[in-house]
């Protein structure tokens, strides 16, 4: 008999039969979406933006997070604020620009003026109000209940009584460190934030980021391209007398298998995919070029000395073991509920939120070391699109897969359909995990999701 994890029933587990299932209604039913908004998005820490997006006092940008319009601003004293972009007078949209620099924001509806710290500076008809009216604390723009940052990543929480961000991020922090420590002086968001709509529920995108089994079928053309790139690169390197030996050794089947085995064993033994609070992460030895810092034969030989030097400096700074992990492995980090950081051909930061069950708005950015040379930055931005982005050779096929699934789910309501996420729950082959991976990390998400909805 099924052991129901909780009601409303979105997830069910039958350990004895090795069965873990997710109801397809959780992707189509408005009731589930409303519960998620209330019990997850109004309770969890949500990624808002990066410190580097506000480079100086007066810098601001507008952003919609969890369906709320906010102003992200750095005041004249350098302090960062997230303010509801809503005039306290009659609810006009106070800031209508995407980004810029300003000392004040004036609401265009009736002209009230607010400072970059949110304080009310001016009411055009001030004589109509009692003395001191303007200076009352609650006349200023309303701040988001909680705003905290971890090493430059700013998160908000709509629940004033939430645990600290640091406690919330739990075991994910050391994985974020492996991103941040790619710079000696700090990371910066590169211009070109990409927003796009995907016609699927937000959870499908998050789930896809943890799904080990889609990779070879969904991304077959990427792997074929990757093989062509390597072949052409090696021919070019050979023709110009550049040795690819170091790369060949590093990316040999034997070394890759050892690296993969070690990464999976670490996952298995230390459960590093379950980082607490629904977060998960995994590292994977990389066979392609990494702008920080692994030269690839398809890249011009002139980049090699600089990438090698970056690596040597990293070894000196963090030691050989961690340097190898940071520079020669790809990193996937999924922070509950809706933040993904993928570090492979470049670093992609992505959030997703559904206003309707069957669609989501995706916001994505790329981030790079501040001190990176112009040449490596150019290489990074070229490399990114080998896989990532709405026109890359990988991401759009993920979108196709989840949109196709979403289209079918409506029909599944007719027969109470369930998705199967059982792989690895009770494997008949104990070595299966090492050979294939399993769906355990997806269960980390779903178990936490059900827990939030049941509270």
């Amino acid at each position: 008999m099924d052991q129901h994890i909780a009601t409303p029933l979105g997830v069910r587990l039958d350990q004895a039969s090795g069965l873990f299932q997710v109801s397809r209604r959780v992707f189509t039913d408005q009731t589930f979406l409303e519960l998620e908004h209330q019990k997850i998005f109004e309770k969890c820490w949500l990624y808002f933006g990066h410190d580097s997006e506000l480079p100086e006092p007066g810098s601001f940008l507008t952003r919609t997070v969890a369906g709320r319009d906010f102003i992200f601003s750095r005041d004249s004293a350098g302090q960062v604020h997230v303010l509801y972009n809503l005039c306290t007078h009659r609810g006009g949209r106070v800031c209508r620009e995407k980004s810029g620099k300003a000392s004040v924001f004036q609401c265009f509806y009736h002209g009230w003026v607010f400072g970059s710290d949110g304080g009310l500076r001016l009411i055009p008809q001030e004589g109509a109000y009692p003395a001191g009216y303007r200076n009352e604390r609650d006349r200023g723009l309303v701040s988001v209940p909680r705003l905290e940052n971890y090493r430059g990543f700013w998160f908000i929480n709509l629940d004033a009584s939430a645990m600290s961000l640091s406690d919330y991020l739990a075991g994910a922090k050391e994985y974020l460190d492996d991103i941040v420590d790619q710079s000696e002086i700090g990371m910066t968001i590169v211009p070109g934030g990409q927003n796009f709509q995907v016609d699927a529920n937000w959870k499908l995108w998050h789930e896809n980021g943890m799904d080990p089994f889609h990779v070879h079928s969904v991304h077959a053309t990427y792997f074929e391209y990757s093989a062509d790139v390597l072949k052409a690169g090696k021919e070019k390197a050979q023709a110009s007398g550049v040795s690819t030996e170091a790369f060949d050794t590093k990316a040999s089947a034997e070394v890759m298998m050892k690296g993969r085995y070690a990464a999976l064993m670490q996952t298995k033994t230390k459960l590093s995919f379950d980082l607490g609070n629904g977060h998960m992460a995994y590292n994977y030895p990389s066979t392609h070029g990494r702008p920080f810092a692994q030269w690839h034969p398809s890249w011009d030989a002139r980049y090699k000395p600089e990438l090698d030097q970056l690596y040597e400096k990293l070894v000196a700074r963090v030691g050989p073991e961690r340097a190898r992990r940071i520079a020669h492995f790809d990193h996937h980090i999924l922070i509950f509920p809706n933040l993904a950081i993928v570090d492979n051909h470049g670093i992609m930061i992505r959030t997703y939120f559904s206003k309707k069950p069957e669609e989501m708005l995706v916001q994505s950015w790329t981030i790079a070391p501040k001190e990176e040379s112009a040449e490596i930055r150019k290489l990074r931005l070229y490399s990114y699109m080998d896989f990532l982005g709405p026109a890359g050779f990988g991401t759009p096929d993920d979108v196709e897969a989840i949109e196709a699934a979403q289209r079918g789910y409506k029909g599944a309501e007719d027969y109470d359909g369930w998705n199967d996420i059982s792989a690895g729950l009770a494997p008949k082959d104990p070595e299966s995990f090492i050979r294939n991976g399993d769906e355990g990390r997806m269960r980390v998400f779903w178990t936490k999701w059900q827990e939030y909805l049941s509270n």
Partner: protein
Amino acid sequence: MLGSSTIGSSFYTDDMTYLVPTPGMPDASPETSLFLINDDRFRMENRVKRLKKRTAHSEYPHSITVHMTTNLRVAEHTADGTQVNGAFHVSRFKDGIMDIFLGRVRYCLVKDGEAVRIRHKRCDLGMDALVPQGRLTIIL
């Protein structure tokens, strides 16, 4: 970044570039800003090669597209070639959904014997997010 030319169209020169900036960034450079597409000949050829496969899932079954280019004007002749500016309107129909991509196009054209070839093509989308399109998997 690789210069081979095993497949692909003779419409383009060997040193071609095909750029689509992130929507909303008309003056951006691919060297300092994240783009949607930043192809040299090697990656453009592989884009075409990929699109022809059944396993390029985002474009299978193949979408129906219509390309219109209009308002073309020769802007100037430079050492690179002839700069031609215009507007494009591309429709993509797949799975019952019509997506529209429109914007401004800038070509740099060169003469190669009797033929005219594209050295650079840059399409700036007239939108600031891929809403509702979600992806750009066809060639504009």
